[in-house]
């Protein structure tokens, strides 16, 4: 049907290429260019500011990969996973790289005090040091059996010590939709976001003038969606993405399915 399809995830831990490989392994054709991650968004945003300093990364390899691919030098990330302040020293001490011009935060399952202190020091020493959050999801399904604390944890920890507010790049901020529509020259009103989370996916589409469709195959149940407490209403909802197939026989003959 010649529709453009993109895959958007707030999870910053895998690069676009790694996500594309995962989709392909699941039988879905996708290349890195079809994928948007919040890590790619952070890197793309920094490029728009002609950023030429270093980024201190509180995050995993995927975030470092996307920043590096955008030509941004990184400090921290997985390399700081095991680092500790030497508390046996009577005057413990932390030096930070004076060339750090941005602290970039995504999900980091190796979060520790060293990273929190490094990030905090960069932010409080220089008010010109940017504070970038890939996403602020409070939790995610990182294993199929359970929800796990999300990037919102790491971001809120650094807000708590630096008393600075970050710029958010992932859903529901507008950056990814703006970038996607500009890059592929697609009018906003011709886009529809299909997602399972009301506070990221559906809110994102609604706040940015795209259509929205909530599917019930993920975290949101019909009861939650229809509850009077829910203020986020998608334009459509359905049990699963596959329901679109039910209208396939009804499409006009002029519509070619590749």
């Amino acid at each position, binding site marked *: 049907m010649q529709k453009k399809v993109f895959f958007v995830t707030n999870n910053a831990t895998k690069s676009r290429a790694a996500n594309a490989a995962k989709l392909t392994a699941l039988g879905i054709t996708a290349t890195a260019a079809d994928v948007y991650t919040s890590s790619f968004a952070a890197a793309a945003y920094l490029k728009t500011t002609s950023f030429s300093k270093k980024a201190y990364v509180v995050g995993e390899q995927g975030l470092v990969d996307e920043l590096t691919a955008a030509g941004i030098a990184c400090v921290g990330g997985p390399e700081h996973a095991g680092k500790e*302040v030497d*508390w046996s020293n009577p*005057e*413990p*001490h*932390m*030096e*930070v*790289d*004076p060339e750090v011009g941005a602290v970039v935060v995504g999900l*980091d*399952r*190796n*979060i*520790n*005090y060293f990273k*929190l*202190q490094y990030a*905090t*020091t960069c932010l*409080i*020493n220089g*008010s010109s040091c940017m504070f970038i959050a890939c996403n*602020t999801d*409070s*939790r995610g399904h*990182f*294993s*199929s*059996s*359970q929800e*796990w*604390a*999300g990037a*919102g*944890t*790491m*971001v*809120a*920890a*650094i*807000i*708590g*010590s*630096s*008393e600075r507010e970050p710029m958010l790049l992932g859903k529901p901020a507008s950056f990814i939709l703006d970038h996607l529509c500009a890059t592929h020259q697609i009018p906003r009103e011709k886009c529809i976001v299909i997602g399972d989370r009301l506070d990221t996916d559906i809110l994102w589409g609604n706040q940015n003038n795209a259509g929205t469709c909530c599917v019930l195959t993920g975290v949101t149940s019909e009861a939650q969606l229809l509850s009077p407490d829910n203020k986020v209403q998608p334009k459509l909802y359905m049990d699963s993405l596959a329901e679109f197939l039910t209208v396939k026989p009804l499409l006009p003959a002029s519509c070619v399915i590749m």
Partner: protein
Amino acid sequence: MQALQRSLPGARAGARPVRPARRMVACTATARPIPRATNEQKLDLLKRVECFIFDCDGVIWLGDKVIDGVPETLDMLRGMGKKVFFVTNNSTKSRAGYMSKFQSLGLDVKAEEIYSSSYAAAAYLESINFNKKVYVIGETGILEELDLKGIRHLGGPGDADKRVTLKSGEYMEHDHDVGAVVVGFDRYINYYKIQYATLCIRENPGCLFIATNRDAVTHLTDAQEWAGNGSMVGAIVGSTKREPTVVGKPSDFMLKNISASLGLRPDQICMVGDRLDTDIMFGKNGGLTTSLVLSGVTTEEVLNSPDNKVIPDYVLAKLPDLLTVKEMAMVAA
């Protein structure tokens, strides 16, 4: 060799916006500059007040050095029958643990005169007749205080080396008997602890979320500021979307706990501190008499600035200034 990034305590005080106080106290126009206490005012203070609560840093000591004259001042106050308390938001040590710091600085104090936020957490749980288990994010001070109140706990330093691997299908079990998560300053914070605490708060019905304090930074050394418990608490707020009950400054639990145990009216208690936005505001919100000392982070300039709306009842250059009225006070007592 990369340049060293340093900042001195208090140097940033004017450089970045301070988190606004949660409750603003209406204040009538005050003549500036606000004068330092006269001898008459010092005598008045000593007559009216039966209990002094001291913030430690900038009042009793600066870093690891006691401010000259403080031991004699404490002796004078005790000699007059006044009660004294030393308050610290740092939960890493128990009251007994802090006693060794006081003693090593030549200060003669009793463990019950120290009110640490670690003690505040245990006292709070006792005050609500808590009888379940506590999951602790924090260091030994909290565990010791919970032990002294007979409150069962998990987590703490024992979980410092635990790791999450997130293999396919990984599942973290958690104790369903945990009825409260207590979060205090933790230099060994990790994802395992964050996830465990998150599961308890989200899945154990009625589970409490208690924070010893929310200070953004803590003064572990003179040379730089260190990420404080505001960071550990922030992490759990981020994953649970719940706000904690704070038991340390500037929450009023600690003040209510102290005044109840002494049977005193709030105005008979004086909060002595060096920070307007925490110590003095904290005292005023609790209806206490307040004294600002200029031996810590607040300068006379900041106190008298037109932007400052927090007016203490008394201003002293330093706590030992009370010694100037010692003889008159002893006669009057």
